């Protein structure tokens, strides 16, 4: 299926970008966040580069009726600023700042066959499952 294949290739491109950017080096991310310590602000250019490109292309792409290979665009349309957004983002930020891994770089780093990424990714998956479990129980 073409979508699956292109998704695979895009995943490769995306993670090569992460590697080039330095996002797969947790020490670089921690240094970026440690603004009062040994601050390395260079990772801000990852967002500059990424948003710079995508901001422009997004506008052009969504003018199309449909994507090239699928029937419709799946673009989130929630607008509410709710507790889940705020608390969720906060919890994510705390975890991110603790070790400097966020989801994609951690998965990419599994290739090193070292403990840190494996432990992180397994815990991350568990965290995802736990949230869904508790959310279902609390019906939120």
């Amino acid at each position, binding site marked *: 299926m073409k979508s699956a294949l292109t*998704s695979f290739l*895009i995943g490769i491109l*995306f993670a090569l970008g992460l590697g080039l950017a*330095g996002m797969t080096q947790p020490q670089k991310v921690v240094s970026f966040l440690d603004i009062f310590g040994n601050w390395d602000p260079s990772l801000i250019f990852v967002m500059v580069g990424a948003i710079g490109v995508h901001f422009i292309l997004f506008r052009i792409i969504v003018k199309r009726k449909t*994507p090239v290979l699928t029937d419709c665009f799946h673009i989130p349309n929630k607008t509410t600023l709710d507790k889940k957004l705020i608390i969720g983002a906060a919890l994510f930020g705390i975890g991110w700042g603790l070790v400097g891994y966020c989801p994609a770089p951690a998965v990419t780093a599994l290739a090193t066959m070292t403990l840190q990424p494996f432990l992180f990714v397994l815990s991350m998956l568990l965290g995802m499952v736990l949230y869904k479990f508790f959310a279902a129980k609390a019906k939120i």
Partner: protein
Amino acid sequence: MMNYLYPLLGGVLIGLSVSLMLYLNGRITGVSGIINGSLSAKKNDFLWRITFIAGLLVAGLILKSFWPESLTSTIVRSDAVIVIAGLLVGFGTVMGGGCTSGHGICGISRLSLRSIIATLIFMSLGVLSATLFRLYFGGAL
């Protein structure tokens, strides 16, 4: 100079990737959402997610072969801290509906207020977390 150039170029690659994903498949590249969605995806929705994740892994292998320093971690963290961090990232990204790619890149690019706020929050808490960790534990990198 190179210190800033590589992140910029890496960012451009990332921006191109997420644009391609939208253009070809109509999907937002929010990696936490792609992973989380793959855990409970229905048949039609599963394949593109798993192949994307496979792509991340293959890129990892490519990086490991040609540029292993890009994947090298020098942070010193106990297993417990890694586990806690992972749990927080997993739990938080699903609760908050996104991560650095979903909210930070895709959401901000389309001027989503939810994403702008989420990004400001996770960036601030990231700074707080990294700072406090250094103050209390010496933050060995």
